[in-house]
């Protein structure tokens, strides 16, 4: 099996490694980089547990080869909290009980983050559609929707310096 040298930036850090052509991106992330927050729940691109951001797009990393990410920018769940501060989505999931077993949660948060980046004030149905590629077996989704609404509201609040005096 041929090997390829790839360089990717993962959560802001550049990594260079030799990988097999057939290595899936999700295995590269989980096993080569030990970032185990990205999960595997199926083998048909259906469940979304492996959702990450690649060059600003959400992808299911079980259906991308590691070599396809060469030169790219990857964000995983481990990169979502910044400077020790939870992201509003993470706060929302905690506050609204948007998770139970936690297995689908990283993928859900990555899909939701993409949604809010492109649609800061989504309707409930837009939220439901945006996470319809992510399966959750525990929550029944209602509280995930609430978690995303919480984050949207928080992200849309004017920051203190934007508040007129």
């Amino acid at each position, binding site marked *: 099996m041929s090997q390829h040298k790839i360089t990717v930036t993962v959560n802001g850090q550049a990594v260079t490694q030799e990988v097999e052509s057939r290595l899936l991106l999700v295995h590269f992330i989980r096993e080569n980089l030990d970032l185990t927050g990205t999960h595997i729940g199926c083998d048909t691109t259906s469940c979304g547990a492996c959702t990450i951001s690649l060059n600003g797009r959400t992808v299911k990393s079980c259906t991308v080869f590691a070599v396809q990410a060469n030169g790219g920018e990857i964000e995983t769940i481990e990169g979502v909290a910044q400077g020790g501060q939870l992201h509003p989505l993470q706060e929302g999931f905690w506050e609204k009980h948007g998770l139970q*077993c936690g297995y689908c949660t990283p993928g859900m948060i990555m899909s939701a983050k993409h949604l809010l980046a492109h649609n800061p004030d989504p309707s409930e149905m837009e939220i439901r559609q945006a996470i319809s590629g992510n399966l959750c077996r525990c929550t029944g989704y209602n509280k995930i929707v609430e978690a995303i609404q919480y984050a949207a509201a928080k992200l849309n609040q004017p920051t203190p310096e934007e508040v007129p005096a």
Partner: protein
Amino acid sequence: MNYHDPHKPKHLADRFENKHAVPNGASAVVATTETVRVTTPADIGGMGHRMKRKEDPRFIQGKGRYVDDIKLPGMLYMDIVRSPYAHAKILNIDASAALALDGVVAVITGKDLAAHNLHWMPTLMSDTQMVLPIDKVVYYSQEVACVIATSRYIAADAVEQVMVDYEPLDVVVDPYQALKDETLVRDDKELKTNRIWHWEAGDKEATDKVFAAAAHVVKEHIYLPRIHVASIETCGMVANFTPATGKMQLYMTTQAPHAIRTVFALVSGLPEHRIQVISPDIGGGFGGKVPVYPGYVVCAVASLLLGKPVKWIEDRSENLTADSFARDYHLEAELAADANGKITGLRVNGLADHGCADAAANPSKFPAGLFSICTGSYDMQAAHINFDAVYTNKPPGGVAYRCSFRVTEAVHMIERLTDIMAHELGEDPAAFRMKNFIPADHFPYKSPTGWEYDSGNYHAALQKALDMIGYDALRQEQAEKRARGELMGIGISSFTEVVGAGPAKDYDILGIKMFDSAEIRIHPTGKAIARFGTKSQGQGHETTYAQIIAEELGLPMADVDVEEGDTDTAPYGLGTYASRSTPTAGAAAVMASRKIKAKARKIAAHLLEVSEDDLEWNINKWQVKGSPEQAKTIQEIAFAAYTNHPPDVEAGLEATDYYNPPNLTFPFGSYICVVDIDKGTGEVHVRRFVAIDDCGNIINPLVVEGQVHGGLTMGLAPALYEEIVYDENGQCLTGTFADYLLPTAVESPKWETGHTITPSPHHPIGAKGVGESPTVGAPPAIANAVVDALWHLGVRHIDIPITPQKVWQALRDAGVTD
């Protein structure tokens, strides 16, 4: 009749409420309320507080630790060769090409296991199941050989290189066909038959008499198809045998680590203290992670033989085609009523399709689980249940699908029959239920099949659901729509659950009594660790158990860490399934706390130089009666327990309790579903769904809501979407998430939930289980709504899943498709 105006008297329910103001809780009749009981301040966070979960920070940051996240030095990977036939002789297995691949360490077959007498294993119901076969396979996707390699990719390559010669045999997939014994699934058995067991409950003679005298009888064949829990994390293991110490560590996706350890010890011959089962974070269980699957056994054997860690993680297709399944019950059911429309009796003939082994996860004495709860919420004179189970060429069935031992099947049947009877008699399904409910003052209630329901107030729950959804207005809307030719249905389900197995005298699994345990240690600075014999798979035990301890001892719940799932450290228990954790281990937490509180009283009396009798408990301290300023907090007492304890009292502040529940708990609820049906496509749209649950006293309302939402969605799923389907050759046609349809956020309705609270009189904090109630209660509400929409067209029953094809066919038969 007025069901929906909250300002008017609630006629029907009023007859049964208010009788329950029992002084001092002395009577067994329990008061129903809607107010969640809170006795501790928020900084303590005891029962009733809507606390955020303690386990969440690691999960929302991707720092959970699931089995597949475990990576050990020198770890090997296992992959499985599976059968393409549902029934075939194995003529030869040639592993030479696989073994020739670089990185392949071993190929293990049934013959290799036979050398250690490990090629068969016991099931939870004391049947036998092949680990790896020698002569023949009995289901599609059965494990045939296992490859061990240095990477998961090489292991997968090698699976393709293992050559197996098969000679196909006749296949039996239909359980009624299996009864004829023309094709034997298990010719290893002494008795040459596919019949596994016969089981009866209730009183046949009394029931036949009731039916002979009945004014009305309805009869229906109801099939509850095979379904799969499909937790988003599949099953897997990392087995780590260290030859130098003789210690076997098994990181495993299991809901019952302690029982698994005992089974492994008995089957392998390894001493039990040298086996450590660790169930780390579990990505959903729902019953599918109770059994032992062949993959686990071979993975452990491989590590034992090779002296190296071995990882096995099944993929989704393996999970959907080979792991144990739920349901597959065929029910011929009849309900009798007198001339006044009062239900008098129930008669059931059932056939259980168990696949190739009776591997049901049931208590030993209950081959059909707790199915005999099937008289449900209705007071009737007699019932009789007659059941057979058969082998077929399918993987083992009989595990739960987020349900307490066959209660979903029972509830679906009685709620469908009740609805059919109401419709046949031309009565409103809500009024018909109100008329037939077990009255609230009849509890504890002895059912015709021998259960003693602990507490209930069915009228109050249904009335609340009717009020919340605006029942009369919906019926009016339905009538108007029907006049216009539109199809709208309203379905009710008023279910009774039975959870919390169970009393040791009747409940065991492989002989191990179904108690559960808690061990609490309070450290000198007043912080605590509590360990349990259960194992959360998302239920939130780290939060709710801490709240129970906070309630009892006044320690802030933030100061109580909860641990489960490591058999080296946690006290023995039977695990988490069948909504048993709160009824058993939750009760153990209370009892262990109370033991600590009793010791704390001695220490407080010593510190305050008073008699123990002069002290009274107040939230988090022992105080002198009439002089509350003289008090010692639990933290002060904890410190003294290690620094200044009375001379006649042992140091330390800890306790363990193994709780044997005196009875099961009987949660209940009433659900109402409104559907609209598209006449062109047959598609069912769930417009509204109101769920009123009563799980007794509530530990954490936020967690209960989460459990109910999740359970409702796992009720919606089999009602409308999910079914594991086989063709006539026993090939599974639903082996991926593209074929086996889990509801997404788009299909899932916005659940409207509420509660009534009728405490369990025998549970120490009056709590009952809740996780499975909605999965049990939701499917018949949805099915009843669909049939309600179609009844006037001559439709009286549709088996779940109610797919657009089935509805469209029914509409076409009635000549009304667009």
